[in-house]
């Protein structure tokens, strides 16, 4: 197989990964890494580097749209980015020293968790307009547009959210994914932010988190231009197409199907990690 054919195949796979990632809200990284390692036999370190770059591209693109709509809370995002970016650095350094078979196993476990989270119905918090004291001092209360007009909200449990965000950052830096599932969990469950605000703010943060570890990966020579080029362009294209389908009604069925695929991929990743032979 020549580089040209290989590039075109990777490009097609990445478009699909970006499309599914946007449609299900799980992000492209979660599909692209198993695709590259299991199907194309790419070393997982190259795959992580390429995925991380595509995560920056899609999240920055999506965040631009969200920010304009006024759902994302820039103060909350910026404050929590201290935690995610330090976490991302730690994750990237960990990745430099961990055996690739262990990374594959951790990746598989995170895949299963993400599939589980995306299928759980998110219950909208009875968000109150009042913040607790720390959140108030950090000026985290704000408002967001609803069909019935602007609605104000407050934030709670900032330390718990901060801690979870560190973990989200570490996972992102270690595995080269956006780890939006953990970010949303931190803001939904711990800080009790409204649904749309936590989704938008998470998206807003993913790019900065990924940039923190991408710098390390680039310097350490993990980002290969020939491989990353089709992955980044493909995922970006797929995600933009996916974003236009986001409001379709059939997403629930698709999400279930997608979760099944993800769990199968996860088991494969864990299996090959344990066997240690396929993914070196």
């Amino acid at each position: 197989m020549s580089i040209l054919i290989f590039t075109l195949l990777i490009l097609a796979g990445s478009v699909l990964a970006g499309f599914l990632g946007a449609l299900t809200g799980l992000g492209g990284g979660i599909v692209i890494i198993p695709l590259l390692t299991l199907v194309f036999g790419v070393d997982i370190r190259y795959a992580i580097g390429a995925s991380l770059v595509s995560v920056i591209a899609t999240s920055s693109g999506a965040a631009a749209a969200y920010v304009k709509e006024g759902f994302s809370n820039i103060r909350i995002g910026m404050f929590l980015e201290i935690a995610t970016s330090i976490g991302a650095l730690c994750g990237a350094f960990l990745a430099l020293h961990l055996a690739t078979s262990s990374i594959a196993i951790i990746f598989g476990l995170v895949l299963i968790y993400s599939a589980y989270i995306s299928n759980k119905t998110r219950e909208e918090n009875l968000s109150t307009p009042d913040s607790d004291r720390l959140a108030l001092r950090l000026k985290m209360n704000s408002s967001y547009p609803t069909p019935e007009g602007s609605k104000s909200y407050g934030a709670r449990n900032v330390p718990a959210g901060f801690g979870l965000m560190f973990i989200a950052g570490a996972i992102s830096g270690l595995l080269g994914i956006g780890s939006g599932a953990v970010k949303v969990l931190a803001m939904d469950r711990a800080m009790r932010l409204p649904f749309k605000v936590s989704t938008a703010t998470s998206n807003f943060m993913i790019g900065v988190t990924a940039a923190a570890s991408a710098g390390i990966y680039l310097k350490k020579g993990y980002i290969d231009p020939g491989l990353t080029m089709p992955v980044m362009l493909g995922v970006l294209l797929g995600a933009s197409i996916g974003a236009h389908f986001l409001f379709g009604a059939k997403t629930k069925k698709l999400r279930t199907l997608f979760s099944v695929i993800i769990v199968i991929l996860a088991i494969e990743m864990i299996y090959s990690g344990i066997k240690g032979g396929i993914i070196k």
Partner: protein
Amino acid sequence: MKKAIERLARHDMEMVIGNVLRAGVIIAAMVVLSGGTIFLWRHGYAVPNYKIFQREPVELSSIWGIIQTSLEGHGRGFIQLGLLLLIATPVTRVALSIFEFARQRDKVYVAVTSIVLCILLYSLFGR
């Protein structure tokens, strides 16, 4: 009245940040695409090898190396330059936010944002 001005300022800031993000991604993607075209034009018929991991050379992994390689017209250098621009996009966003918070005289968030920027710059330029 004061609240209205605050809301307007917030909106302003969000628009600027949104535009920076979008422009950064578009420019980066175009640079990567042109680099990729050169790369495929020259090396399209070679055999790919991504099975065995080998760190990229300094010319493709350090910032100065990447700038030099792309100035010499190498496709792979151009791709890396595009990726570098992409990584720089969120960093620029964070830097702009510092100015915005300073304009709003929000010292706490000038500090918060500066910490984030330092972490990002360390990642890019630190050893």
